[in-house]
């Protein structure tokens, strides 16, 4: 039995006095390769993992509770803090869910700008993934290159909304701002740079012997496992399913865009790496198509739904009724219809779902945030045993988990 006192707290899951030869290693929650506050309790036989227990909750902020105590517009900036690497995708998922609940649609230009931001954010997220994953595995220089290009993308984000990490650039019913002048030209320049650079990253890694040794046949997620654990995003596509919500159950303007869904049949980390690289190219393809679409679109940015959404600023300044409506919406919040919606979007990490149950009051009755990384972390329990200790960082890095959205 453990002798418990204040200096030696009780560790559940850990048995210090064991008769067999296994060693228990506590990995995290402050491990730099854990990509956040992940605590893994590993049982090792030599260097081989026999049992892994992922433990989470070190970043739990109670977002679902906050969602039930905040008006819909108040909650939107909170969603940024879920997957803080790609916050636009969270904003968008939430805005889309509320829009579906209200039964309104964002104007076309707003939808185009949102899609631009989403895809730019996907690139930012994938570059971040590549940089940190490669760093974990031991490729230092790729980290510097990928972060350099990510900086350009973040500058574009900053030019649009002023924020670099937590954008809140999407509103319920549209977007608050039009693109600044010359933004599209800058975007084209960025795409031109990045498309060359992605080839260079691949040149550094794809056939690199060390990279392949570290990734090939490591972290094999079988198709059954992927389905059973509710995997989504690249974790699912890496297991041979060509499933991307943007293509299979399109939302927004994705049905008008031409892009492919990369997938891998190898089920291992290397296959998933290739998917990520290809996805960046597909995102660039989407962005290229969006620029002419943007130029052709009408200038309206917010949906016209006076019951739920404030009038444009010039109306608020000039018309009494718009001002009154705005005041009510800001102080009391919108009152959506009674009902429930589950809206899933494809975030860079996987299927990001917002389940909102509304009872007709300005506060959601229930807000369930389906964060893809949550189950990708749970999966570690099944995925890690049988691997070497050194593969743990490869697998954690490769699954692209972000603790903001796991603990919410």
């Amino acid at each position, binding site marked *: 039995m453990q002798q418990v006192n204040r200096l030696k707290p009780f560790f559940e899951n850990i048995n210090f006095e064991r008769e067999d030869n296994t060693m228990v290693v506590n990995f995290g929650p402050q491990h730099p390769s854990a990509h956040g506050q992940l605590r893994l309790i590993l049982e090792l036989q030599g260097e081989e993992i026999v049992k892994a227990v992922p433990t989470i909750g070190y970043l739990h902020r109670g977002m679902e509770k906050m969602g*039930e*105590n905040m008006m819909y517009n108040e909650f939107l900036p909170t969603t940024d803090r879920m997957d803080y690497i790609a916050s636009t995708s969270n904003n968008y998922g939430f805005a889309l869910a509320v829009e579906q609940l209200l039964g309104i649609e964002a104007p076309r230009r707003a939808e185009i700008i949102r899609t631009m931001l989403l895809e730019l954010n996907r690139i930012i997220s994938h570059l971040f993934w590549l940089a940190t994953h490669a760093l974990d595995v031991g490729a230092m220089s790729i980290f510097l290159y990928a972060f350099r290009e990510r900086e350009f993308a973040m500058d574009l984000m900053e030019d649009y909304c002023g924020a670099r990490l937590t954008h809140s650039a999407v509103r319920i019913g549209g977007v608050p701002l039009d693109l600044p002048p010359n933004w599209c030209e800058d975007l084209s320049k960025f795409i031109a740079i990045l498309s060359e650079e992605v080839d260079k990253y691949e040149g550094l890694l794809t056939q690199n012997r060390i990279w392949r040794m570290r990734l090939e046949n490591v972290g094999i997620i079988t198709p059954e496992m992927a389905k*059973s654990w*509710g995997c989504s995003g690249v974790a699912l596509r890496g297991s041979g399913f060509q499933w991307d919500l943007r293509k299979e159950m399109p939302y927004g303007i994705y049905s008008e865009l031409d892009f492919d869904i990369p997938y891998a049949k190898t089920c291992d980390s290397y296959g998933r790496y290739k998917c990520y690289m290809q996805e960046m190219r597909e995102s660039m393809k989407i962005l290229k198509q969006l620029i002419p679409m943007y130029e052709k679109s009408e200038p309206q940015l917010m949906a016209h739904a006076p019951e739920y959404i404030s009038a444009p600023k010039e109306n608020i300044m000039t018309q009494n009724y718009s001002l009154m409506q705005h005041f009510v919406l800001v102080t*009391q919040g919108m009152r959506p219809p009674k*009902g429930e919606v589950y809206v899933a979007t494809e975030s860079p990490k996987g299927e990001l779902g917002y*389940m909102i149950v509304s009872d007709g009051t300005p506060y959601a*009755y229930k807000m369930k945030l389906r964060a893809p990384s949550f189950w990708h972390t*749970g999966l570690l329990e099944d995925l890690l045993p049988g691997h070497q200790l050194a593969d743990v960082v490869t697998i954690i890095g490769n699954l692209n988990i972000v603790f903001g959205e796991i603990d919410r």
Partner: protein
Amino acid sequence: MRAYSPKNDVQKKSYYNDRFHVVPSVPRADVQTDEVFLNDLTTFKEKFTVLDAYLEKGHLVIIIEAKNNLKAVKFLKEKLSYDMMMELSAIDYIASRQGFEIFYEMLSMSKHKRIRVKCFIEEKEELSSVESVFKMANWSEREMYDMYGVKVKNHHNLKRILMPDDWYDYPLRKTYPLQGDETAQWYEVDKIFGKEAREAIGPEIRDGAAIDRYDTTRFARLGHEVPYGVDITNGKEPEHTPLAYQEEGGVGLFGVRIIKELHEDKSVQLKKRR
């Protein structure tokens, strides 16, 4: 007369409700309008009692009896190819209906359809685990237990997942206040310093927006600065802090003062931007 509001729901409520506001509902469609769902529902009805079924925003919602949940989910997976479970959780209706509504959000990748299976359980009733069908339920059910206190039968490791193991009460229940209850205030004090230190330390302030103007160790008073940790309670609060205030010894970096000392009486405030 004031409208009735349940006393065991402490979540934030709107401060004003228009008596004449009629709350609309999200339109529900008949299952007849969707062929795929209609076929699925007919097959499903042959095996299980369906309390209600309707289409809401493109989702088929089926309400079943709670005792059938495991069999129904298994049937949907194996026979009707709803091969992924995306989400499951509970909705707290203790105040109005004395129980929880459990929902299972499922996806069929071959049919491109989403379905939501719902069932209702009493507050103390137990629910069968669907972990044997979908492994994702392992963590989801733990989260549901952690947040709502819904007991799940046949779960191999039903313990808290996000909250500490010894946490009191279930945070997502409507009876649980946003900033935590009485026990939550003492949790960290008890854990780190022990119960005997309660009086010396005091409860944890769990309101993130709380400001104490007399607390000079944790709060800066812009424009009214006082030295760090000085007691300013009971009339010791300075009436005016000169702008030239600098910490004792001056703001120095390697012995060199980096900010020129400001004399308030000699300074001029500009009326217009230059």
